[in-house]
């Protein structure tokens, strides 16, 4: 099977969908001619392949980019826009939250807004907190949106293709750390349904629910724990909303122990939602307290030792596991 970084998998999904459906177009800052002339990035080569009518470089105007998507989607096009870094979601958030997410409801179901907002996200680049700020919990708190966060290149391809074909606004968050890791990706017209988590590793002693860049951390920790005969089941959410409660609950039923792992800061993070769902619907399965392993409640600092401290790692996860085993 071909091996691709997550950005390349996104690129392939975009290419395939643009070939399939002339209503799909992409827009954003540098999605055509960008400052990186590098095939690891998601929109590489699309301008050459599809021309300037369908690959729209925009001014630095996040509200207009998002509004472009809202209006064009209402007309039946399928825009895929890019927000360069997650903190700039703020600037597009009125259009996305008050408009893309609400206008169908406000129309009484008459109009649809089939658009995708791709967001580059994640800490680990030394760029600091105005470039690194994981805000998936914001989008996941907005009815009307779907929120997708792939952790592998294959998932990225399959989920993005589904997102583009979905008739609702989908927030598709890419962890940039995954652009540089080559992973197998199916070559065909590969689709993964939105709203389905995947058990990325089966286990009986402990459930770790995670998503996006943290899957790798979970896998490494699980490997280590396995050497002590502790078998970790890893649930990769893939889609935050709609949330696949069944898969989470089935796993907790099996293991009785739950850790939620995410890179975003702890307080108010989406880990709380997982906790609440399990406490509501899986209380009787639980044998031990919950642990959340997350970024601390600080902005992402620039300095390498500080940033490393910010990002949850295997040791943090293993320590949390020991506390509840």
């Amino acid at each position, binding site marked *: 099977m071909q091996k691709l970084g997550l950005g390349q998998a996104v690129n392939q999904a975009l290419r395939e969908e643009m070939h399939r459906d002339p209503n799909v*177009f992409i827009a954003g800052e540098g999605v055509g001619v960008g400052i990186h002339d590098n095939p690891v990035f998601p929109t590489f080569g699309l301008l050459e392949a599809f021309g300037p*009518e369908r690959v*729209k470089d*925009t*001014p630095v*105007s*996040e*509200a*207009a980019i*998002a*509004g*472009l*998507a*809202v*209006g*064009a*989607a*209402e*007309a*039946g*096009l399928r*825009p895929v826009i890019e927000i360069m870094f997650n903190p700039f979601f703020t600037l597009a958030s*009125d*259009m996305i939250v*008050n*408009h893309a997410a609400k*206008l*169908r*409801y*406000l*129309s*009484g*179901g*008459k*109009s*649809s807004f*089939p658009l995708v907002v791709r967001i580059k996200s994640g800490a680990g680049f030394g760029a600091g907190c105005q470039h690194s700020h994981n805000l998936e919990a914001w989008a996941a708190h907005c*009815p*009307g949106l779907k929120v997708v966060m792939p952790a592998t290149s294959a998932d990225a391809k399959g989920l993005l293709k589904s997102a583009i074909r*979905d*008739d*609702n606004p989908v927030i598709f968050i890419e962890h940039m750390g995954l652009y540089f890791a080559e992973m197998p990706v199916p070559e065909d017209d590969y689709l993964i349904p939105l709203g389905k988590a995947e058990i990325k590793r089966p286990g009986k002693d402990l459930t770790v629910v995670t998503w996006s860049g943290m899957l790798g951390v979970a896998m490494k920790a699980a490997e280590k724990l396995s050497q002590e005969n502790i078998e970790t089941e890893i649930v990769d959410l893939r889609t935050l909303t709609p949330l696949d409660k069944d898969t989470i609950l089935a796993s907790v039923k099996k293991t009785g122990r739950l850790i939620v792992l995410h890179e975003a800061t702890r307080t108010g993070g989406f880990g709380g939602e997982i906790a609440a769902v399990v406490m509501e619907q899986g209380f009787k399965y639980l044998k031990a307290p919950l642990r959340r392993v997350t970024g601390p409640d600080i902005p992402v600092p620039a300095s390498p030792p500080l940033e490393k401290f910010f990002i949850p790692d295997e040791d943090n996860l293993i320590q949390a596991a020991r506390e509840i085993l």
Partner: protein
Amino acid sequence: MEVSEKKKKEMLWTMILSRKFSDSLVVLCKTEGKIPGMMILSTGQEAVGSGVCAALEFDDVIITNHRSHHHLLAKGADPEKIMAEIYCKQTGCNKGKSGTLHLAVPEINAPCTSTVVGGSLPIAVGRAFAQQYRKETAVTVCFFGDGAADEGSFHEALNLASLWQLPVVFVCENNVYAGAQRYDAHTRVKDVAERAKSYGMPGVIVDGNHAPAVYAATLKARQRALDGGGPTLMECKTYRLRGHGESDPQHYQPKDEIKAWQGKNPISRLGKELVESGVITAAELQEMESKAKDIVAEAVRFAEESPFPEARDALEDLYA
């Protein structure tokens, strides 16, 4: 420009309908328990909705804002459906989800209303982009107020629309107030139209209380857009005769200012013009008035007799 008699009559009619509609809401919204939410009316600004929409074809799209009734009625919205929505009834055009503030009428190509000030502009850009992308013979009109022209979204939208030469007409309804703030208390630019230059697009100032003038300017801007000449910023100078909403006592609006603008009533002005020039008779004018009254009364009856949606209908219509 010579405006045809037919068009003039059409505009007079939609203005009269719109005014009757507002007038009835003035009373109804004060009647306890009839209509929930804020009541924002366009009394005095009817020439803008009527003049603009008279210049549009059915396929042309309008994106409107919180003060939308006159736009929608002029574009051809069914008074019963929007009245029922204003009453938040199940038979309303949006099944009670929207109420008076976010009326969405896609069936007449008025697919959304944004009550976020400035929200209509980026969406209009996207709607016009779709027209360009598909090479449609149609334009998008975006309505917004003078206050909205101070929002960042105004700036981003006009820049992008001009950059891509999108077929959009930005219609700023300068009614002298943004909420309680007079125009000159929210910006130092004399005319909003001046801002067009910042984006390399034409800016025109129009007498917003004269429907034929609005019509002519729109026709021109529309043609320019269809010819690939890109967007136009049209500033229609008008006046908000009532408060921002119906609970606003207008304590900050000078009484003589209101009075002076009442004298420039766009409806009696065009009505008089058409009667004096013999296009219609005084009797015909009266007939139009009573017909509009009947239509509005019928719409009110329809709305009042319609049921509210069921509580659990709230869960419908979110996801496609």
